[in-house]
């Protein structure tokens, strides 16, 4: 399915590639427009679906009139809840790999409306344009019911969730007596932080092209972070056998979590293809990209008490977060605080409030990007109250054991992150006084924060096939959403088998390939990379055995343990000049190809004895226009400890991208809800602001050396999330340092800065 990318000669790596800053192997396909994404597979007879979105937020549909739409030339059919085909009834049939507890949303299931812009009909037509027009002509009447979408209005009716979802850990039990310790502390901070709704907004809108094959089977091109997840969901919802559906997703135009759950365009396209027996494409519009999951708004109280020397004596971190009426979305928001700092009196609390919105959805560093900014802004407030350097305060309360679990970290080089980041940034030249740096009308501020994320691993399979021509094909059903999976997996395989990277093809994004979990949570190198390593090691083992048995014993009496693979040869470890080409080894053994499949499972026992995490120290410089309140981030240094870095070039880009999204989070991103209508209003890219090129100054990424033998055989922790986590707080803290204004409600837009400046000058 995936053509072998042509790699220019200059970029060809001479040898094993682990740790090398290799250019992306799929790059040439991307820069020439040859990489095809889900909505780009044009097949003969393809028809197009366009979704009609509800105009109310809660209630029921009383009437749907599709006559006008059906009269339009080109319109083939309009699907509604009244005429949809039979689909699964049990909730469990609608669950996917990332589903929290509850009752998953079912498109076109009945007349109930449970969130704004809910899909209520699908118009299918011969052309995209006709389908779009048809969608405008569907007349829907509703009976509206009162709704509530304001978290502040429901915060006092929040409840404590259980373990609603895989990967979620409820907060640990309180330690000591935090309220008393807080009351008695010499220096304290007790503040509330508010974070808004955010939407993933990957550049590629969610789309699915379902090809209806002659034999009635379906080939589904889906935008997903897990082809197997979409595959099993489609089979389950529509009652299809596994062999009747294949999901393919070789390229994904960004996701950041939006592709962790099968979205409703997939349902729509499959439904229409099965009913019409035609190939169907359904692509969401940009406003519809705001209808299926988001980073939930959160209100957090953080109270810290410290001794005059900065030693933390009390920590209270309480969060109330939005969830929907039908599922209990949860993420780890507050636990990080108790994990990052040593403190004897701690209470961490996490609650959910039910609102009439779609269920939130994991978005880059879910939970950490919400909770860590709160504790890291509070630590800055505490440092200011203590008249202490904020790096020093963090080091004063540094811990080498995870206080939540009372376990050692498998590795934690956060100290080195602070040291190297501070050095690169020039932190030692910082004047602690707010408003102490200016250039003309620009106030300049420097801020710091740390970041943390889990180093998770899941079970994954990979298959490696070495041909006698020396070409290696490695396959696993994982995804590359821009993360560099194609490249790093090729590097791991090439490195293990001593092949030039140009000899390796990695296949992914296909439900027919060996199983892999959804790509998310920074665990793909850990999970799939370990499986690739294992499969390649098996191939290597077989080569060694064949080499040992070779006629004429070119490697003498060497046992497999004495051999190495290098540059396409089996060689003696002790004397690499004595070597045999792989092709000759295989020919002599009478094999044309060696194929091995392997499953990697986490080191459960070792992992259970440790806390595994990536860490970062982020330093930010901002320039605030004192007249206008506008904030620009001129510099970021992010020092990251994430174990072994397989490819510093792609990993550096990932962290840089996390920094950019963190800048958006700090300064720009917010989905505005009209609570009267219960509807997001700025649902497009003109008014939902994400950073543009002009917003981004210098970003410097440092990878700190970190050795870890617990995390996985590669020693690599993954870097997809860690890049964003520390950034919002570092920027917020820099804004305070620049202006003396503390903005506790993200994003830090100019109106909030100006209000603070006005309050300051009035005081």
């Amino acid at each position, binding site marked *: 399915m995936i053509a072998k990318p042509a790699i220019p000669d200059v970029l060809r790596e001479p040898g094993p590639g682990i740790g090398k800053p290799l250019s992306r192997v799929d790059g040439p396909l991307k820069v020439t427009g040859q*990489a095809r994404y889900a909505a780009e597979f*044009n097949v003969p007879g393809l028809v197009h679906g366009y979704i009609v979105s509800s105009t109310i937020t809660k209630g029921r549909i009383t009437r749907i009139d599709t006559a006008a739409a059906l009269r339009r030339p080109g319109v083939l059919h309009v699907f509604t809840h009244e005429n949809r085909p039979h689909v699964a009834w049990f909730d469990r049939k609608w669950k996917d790999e990332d589903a929290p507890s509850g009752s998953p949303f079912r498109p076109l299931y009945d007349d109930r409306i449970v969130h704004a812009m809910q899909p209520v009909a699908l118009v299918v037509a011969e052309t995209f344009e006709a389908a779009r027009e048809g969608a405008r002509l569907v007349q829907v009447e509703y009976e509206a019911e009162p709704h509530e979408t304001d978290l502040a209005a429901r915060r006092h009716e929040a409840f404590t969730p259980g373990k609603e979802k895989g990967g979620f850990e409820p907060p640990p039990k309180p330690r000591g007596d935090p309220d008393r310790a807080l009351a008695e502390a010499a220096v304290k901070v007790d503040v509330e932080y508010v974070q808004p709704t955010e939407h993933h907004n990957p550049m590629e809108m969610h789309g699915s092209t379902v090809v209806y094959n002659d034999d009635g089977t379906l080939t589904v091109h889906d935008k997903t972070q897990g082809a197997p997840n979409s595959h099993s969901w489609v089979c389950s919802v529509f009652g299809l056998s596994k062999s009747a559906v294949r999901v393919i997703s070789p390229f994904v135009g960004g996701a950041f979590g939006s592709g962790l759950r099968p979205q409703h365009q997939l349902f729509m396209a499959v439904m229409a293809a099965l009913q019409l027996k035609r190939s169907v494409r359904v692509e969401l519009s940009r406003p519809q990209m705001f209808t299926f999951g988001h980073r939930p708004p959160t209100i957090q109280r953080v109270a810290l008490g410290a001794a005059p020397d900065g030693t933390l004596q009390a920590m209270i971190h309480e969060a109330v977060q939005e969830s929907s009426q039908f599922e209990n979305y949860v993420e780890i928001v507050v636990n990080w605080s108790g994990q990052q700092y040593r403190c004897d009196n701690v209470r961490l609390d996490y609650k959910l409030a039910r609102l009439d919105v779609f269920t939130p959805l994991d978005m880059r560093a879910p939970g950490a990007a919400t909770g860590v900014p709160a504790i890291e802004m509070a630590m800055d407030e505490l440092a200011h109250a203590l008249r202490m350097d904020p790096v020093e305060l963090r080091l004063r309360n540094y811990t080498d054991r995870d206080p939540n679990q009372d376990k050692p970290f498998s590795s934690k080089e956060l100290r080195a992150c602070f040291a190297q980041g501070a050095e690169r940034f020039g932190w030692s030249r910082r004047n602690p006084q707010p408003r102490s740096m200016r250039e003309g009308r620009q106030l300049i501020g420097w801020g710091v924060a740390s970041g943390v994320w889990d180093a998770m691993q899941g079970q994954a399979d990979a298959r490696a096939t070495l041909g006698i021509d020396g070409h290696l094909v490695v396959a696993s059903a994982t995804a590359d959403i821009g993360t560099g999976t194609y490249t790093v997996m090729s590097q791991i395989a090439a490195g293990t088998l001593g092949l030039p990277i140009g000899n390796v093809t990695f296949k992914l994004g296909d439900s027919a390939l060996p199983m892999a979990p959804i790509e998310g949570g920074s665990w793909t190198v850990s999970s799939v990379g370990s499986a690739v390593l294992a499969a390649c090691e098996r191939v290597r083992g077989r080569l060694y055995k064949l080499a040992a048995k070779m006629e004429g014993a070119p490697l003498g009496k060497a046992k497999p343990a004495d051999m190495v693979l290098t540059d396409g040869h089996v060689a003696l470890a002790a004397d690499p000049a004595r070597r045999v080409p792989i092709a000759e080894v295989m020919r002599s053994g009478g094999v044309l190809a060696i194929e091995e499949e392997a499953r990697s499972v986490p080191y459960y026992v070792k992992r259970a004895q440790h806390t595994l995490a990536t860490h970062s120290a982020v330093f930010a410089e901002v320039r605030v226009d004192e007249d206008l309140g506008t904030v620009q981030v001129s510099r970021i240094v992010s020092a990251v400890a994430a174990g072994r870095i397989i490819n510093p070039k792609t990993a550096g880009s990932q962290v840089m991208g996390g920094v950019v999204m963190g800048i958006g989070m700090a300064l720009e991103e917010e989905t505005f809800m009209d609570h009267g209508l219960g509807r997001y209003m700025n649902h497009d890219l003109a008014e939902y602001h994400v950073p543009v090129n002009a917003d981004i100054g210098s970003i410097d990424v440092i990878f700190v050396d970190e050795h870890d033998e617990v995390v996985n055989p590669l020693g690599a922790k993954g870097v997809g999330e860690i890049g964003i986590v520390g950034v919002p707080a570092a920027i917020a803290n820099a804004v305070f340092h620049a202006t003396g204004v503390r903005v506790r409600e993200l994003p830090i837009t100019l109106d909030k800065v100006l209000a603070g400046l006005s309050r300051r000058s009035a005081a």
Partner: protein
Amino acid sequence: MDQRLAELRDTAPAVPDRIPISLVVNGVEKRMEVAAWTTLLDLLRNTLDLPGTKKGCDHGQCGACTVLVDGRRINSCLTLAVMKDGCEVTTIEGLATGDVLHPMQQAFVDHDAYQCGYCTPGQICSAVGLISEGQARTREEIRDLMSGNICRCGAYPNIIAAIEGVLGGTAPAQAKEDPA
């Protein structure tokens, strides 16, 4: 609203006009009949099977659909194909010469100026247009004049490095290849 809709239904044509046009796409002349409501973007992606030009918002708010029309960069999503009758259109598929990448394409590979790759064709076409416009003299000006192309993966610094590399005629900085 209903009354207005009813009126519309009476006056609106049942099908949009189909109009014969001719476009030179990536150097090849294409003669075809297009429906008036088809945008240049949808024509490229759906009819001509050139999906290298991306649809990121369909409303002129992201720049993923950027192509060069008569050498100038524009948003193809807000352009009716019929209005470009007789024009030369260059898309991402038309930049390379055989197997040799356009210098801007090569620079994007060398500088890792992308991640998911979805905004990339628009970024590259935009960067090629930027250079031929000749208005960008400083890094700040490049940043501003490339701000019509959103990259959600956040590759901006590398995009700037790639463009500066081509503008300066320099090879990618080796330091960039091996941080720390």
